[in-house]
């Protein structure tokens, strides 16, 4: 962490996790080489995991925008809550290799965005079906 140029802060949309992330951001801004030498600050990006769009829409979970606002760092991506994450972790294989799963796609999107590619946040809004597009507000 001391020599870092960029930091990808991984958090859940949950009070304790966001609070810990804010502490880490505080350390990044004060106890790192760049901070001590007064160089350009470390690049900070938020990766929000275990995100459930359905619960956000119901008001049961903080939205990605809320977490970004609280931490005041830009969003690199959201990883949807997915069973495939634990399965991949159990098996010791990166979930990003499972390109058929939404979590795998989300991780690959986040990596591409970090490397400078423009990619739509496809897990941040619900993709509407035919009727949703006609009747939705």
């Amino acid at each position, binding site marked *: 962490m001391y020599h870092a140029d960029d930091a990808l802060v991984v958090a859940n949309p949950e009070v304790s996790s966001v*609070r810990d992330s804010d502490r880490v951001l505080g350390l990044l801004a004060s106890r790192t080489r760049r901070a001590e030498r007064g160089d350009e600050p470390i690049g900070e990006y938020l990766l929000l995991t275990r995100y459930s769009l359905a619960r956000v829409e119901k008001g*049961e979970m903080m939205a990605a925008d809320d977490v970004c606002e609280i931490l005041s760092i830009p969003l690199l991506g959201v990883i949807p809550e997915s069973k495939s994450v634990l399965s991949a972790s159990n098996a010791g294989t990166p979930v990003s290799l499972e390109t058929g799963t939404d979590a795998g796609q989300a991780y690959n999107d986040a990596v591409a965005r970090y490397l400078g590619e423009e990619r739509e946040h496809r897990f941040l809004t619900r993709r509407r079906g035919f009727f949703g597009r006609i009747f939705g507000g």
Partner: protein
Amino acid sequence: MSILDVFRRKNRNSAALAKDRLQVIIAHERSRANAPDYLPPLREEIMQVIRKYVDVDDEAVRMQIDRDGDYEILELNITLPETPAPRRR
């Protein structure tokens, strides 16, 4: 409005509640993190001086630093006991 709506509304508010709680917690922690390192020893020495004259508890002393524009305010708030018990005469 049905009985179920009451429970639904409670859930609907929980994300907003989480955000409010976080904003309070984080504002508090950031102000503490920004406080200068000399604050705890300063507090301790001030306590020792006060205790020479008045018997006060640790909890009766509140010290905080506020920022207002370009300057900082060191605020020291001491609640004196109702019947002062002077140690020296």
